[in-house]
């Protein structure tokens, strides 16, 4: 396979918006995307990735939104469920993967089975940890991969340094880290409800349900079957390094408030209108449980070089 041997180009990465991970009312979702169309974000990932019971928007609704996003000049990508267990989930996934109008992001191995042979994105929950996996998937249509969030700069540099030509790399750059998936719905569990009788209680937590330690340190964030970090991962202070490595996209994960402002901060840093240090001071106010960046530096994910844990 031809390798991209050109020196890292210092090309400015594009900005992407990850899928909405929480359960928001339909109107709120539609308003959110209407607002995002006005921001300088380049790529928008859409779709339910956490729980198949959340059906306020159906695949058809997301396709319609994707048409609108494409018409506005931005790139839509259909993102898919991260944990596939039931036959119904598999059928929906198959339908999403069969629609060739839009690029699709695979978040479970099942999606690779349906997407093989056409261009696709491997999301951060596809375990792409080494060059052989990267080449293997590239031969099957991989066009872009999102680095698994626990991997740091050293592995990113190794992978970027020998990536197959034409394959793009995206980093999860801002948001609560997606850490784990389970059969159990933790939101329902903490409301003493069973998953089959969840009463859609995740709708009560537009940014997830905070878990703090017994000494009140914000630690985790529960979002249905997904466990996230309580702290917000922020790679903006490493922007120069990320650009030197040749990263193609930076992902901002939606939150119930300030997403448009966060996109603007990243965009202003990319154009040089804002210094990353000043920008991070601004971003801190959008991260109620503090910022973290340890994974990138090869440390515990919760660690923060920027002194960003709760003030």
């Amino acid at each position: 396979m031809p390798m991209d041997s050109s020196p890292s180009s210092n090309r400015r990465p594009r900005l992407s918006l990850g899928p909405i991970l929480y359960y928001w009312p339909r109107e709120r979702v539609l308003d959110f995307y209407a607002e995002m169309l006005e921001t300088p974000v380049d790529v928008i990932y859409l779709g339910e990735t956490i729980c198949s019971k959340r059906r306020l928007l159906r695949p058809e609704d997301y396709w319609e939104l994707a048409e609108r996003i494409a018409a506005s000049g931005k790139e839509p990508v259909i993102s898919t469920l991260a944990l596939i267990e039931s036959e119904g989930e598999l059928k929906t996934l198959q339908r999403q993967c069969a629609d060739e109008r839009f690029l699709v992001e695979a978040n479970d191995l099942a999606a690779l089975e349906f997407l093989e042979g056409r261009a696709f994105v491997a999301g951060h929950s596809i375990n792409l940890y080494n060059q052989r996996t990267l080449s293997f998937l590239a031969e099957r249509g991989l066009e872009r991969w999102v680095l698994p969030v626990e991997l740091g700069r050293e592995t990113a540099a190794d992978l970027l340094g020998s990536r197959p030509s034409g394959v793009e790399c995206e980093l999860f750059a801002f948001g609560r880290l997606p850490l784990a998936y389970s059969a159990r719905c933790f939101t329902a569990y903490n409301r003493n409800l069973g998953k089959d009788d969840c009463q859609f209680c995740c709708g009560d937590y537009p940014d997830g349900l905070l878990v703090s330690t017994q000494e009140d340190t914000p630690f985790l964030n529960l979002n249905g079957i997904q466990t996230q970090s309580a702290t917000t991962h922020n790679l903006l202070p490493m922007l120069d390094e990320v650009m030197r490595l040749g990263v193609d996209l930076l992902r901002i994960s939606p939150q119930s408030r300030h997403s448009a402002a966060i996109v603007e901060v990243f965009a202003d840093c990319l154009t040089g209108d804002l210094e990353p240090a000043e920008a991070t001071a601004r971003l801190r106010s959008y991260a109620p449980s503090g910022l973290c960046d340890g994974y990138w530096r090869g440390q515990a994910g919760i660690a923060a070089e920027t002194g960003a844990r709760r003030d």
Partner: protein
Amino acid sequence: MELVCPAGNLPSLKAAVDNGADAVYTGFRDETNARHFAGLNFNEKQIRTGLDYAHDRKVKVFVAINTYAQPSGWARWTAAVDRAADLGVDALILADLGVLDYAAERHPHINLHLSVQGSATNPAAIGFMHRHFGIRRVVVPRVLSLAQVASLIEKTEVPVEIFGFGSLCVMVEGRCLLSSYACGQSPNTFGACSPAAHVEWRDTPQGQETRLGGILIERRSHAEPAGYPTLCKGRYQVAGELRHAIEEPTSLNTLDILPDILAAGVSAIKVEGRQRSTRYVTQVTKVWREAIDACKRNPQSFRPKESWRQVLAQVSEGAQTTLGPYHRPWH
């Protein structure tokens, strides 16, 4: 249905073989397997001795190389695959797509099993792995209900192995980063969850504290028993309430539903616990051998014996056991 038992060292391997395992699974002494604990696992000489012991008694030996290789360590994973293949083990238990691709190309004659760390929970994911790497078995993550396991078995040509007993991972294996979030090392990258080097125990006036990477994951009164310090089983504050936010300190025991497991067409049942003692391996293997044999003889009238329950209760981690995800209300 095959009984697959853990062997963290040679005495445990022999104990599993002597007490009725159909297969034992092991790993090398490094981060290429998901039980990378100090003093555990096999060097080449030990595994050769173990292989001879097991093969002389018609018991199979599987080697787990089921963590994820990063570029800087890639050669260690391929070396582990080559070593296991050269030793003539009965199967490699792999998770990483790149490692699977390497093993399938370099050692096409070797049986490959997809590890639980490979996170395949549905027929399409298993189909993908089978089509590309010819996997001969899949160990499914502890997320499916028994009805889902049965349905999966109907829809895939790959034999299915499930976990029957031992510690309970609450998250989809291979896709849980909680440990590295707290301390920088995870099952995927390092081969251990909540590794001992990052765990601190501290007696304080408020009780005994357990910290992982400095983060308080449990504080209990001195009277309460301390379990293995996985952060998913600690107590935390959620909406003003102190509780087990993710799971209680409980372990998996599926003895009660053994006839259903058999009827579902499960090909192999796995006992967790390569990090546990030889006594654990001896007792658990013995009970499960008896139970499987009794169940096969007469599934309709199968009832777990009280003596089995007592033995298993003594070696279980935590005070309670659960059917876990196999039982829908757990979800």
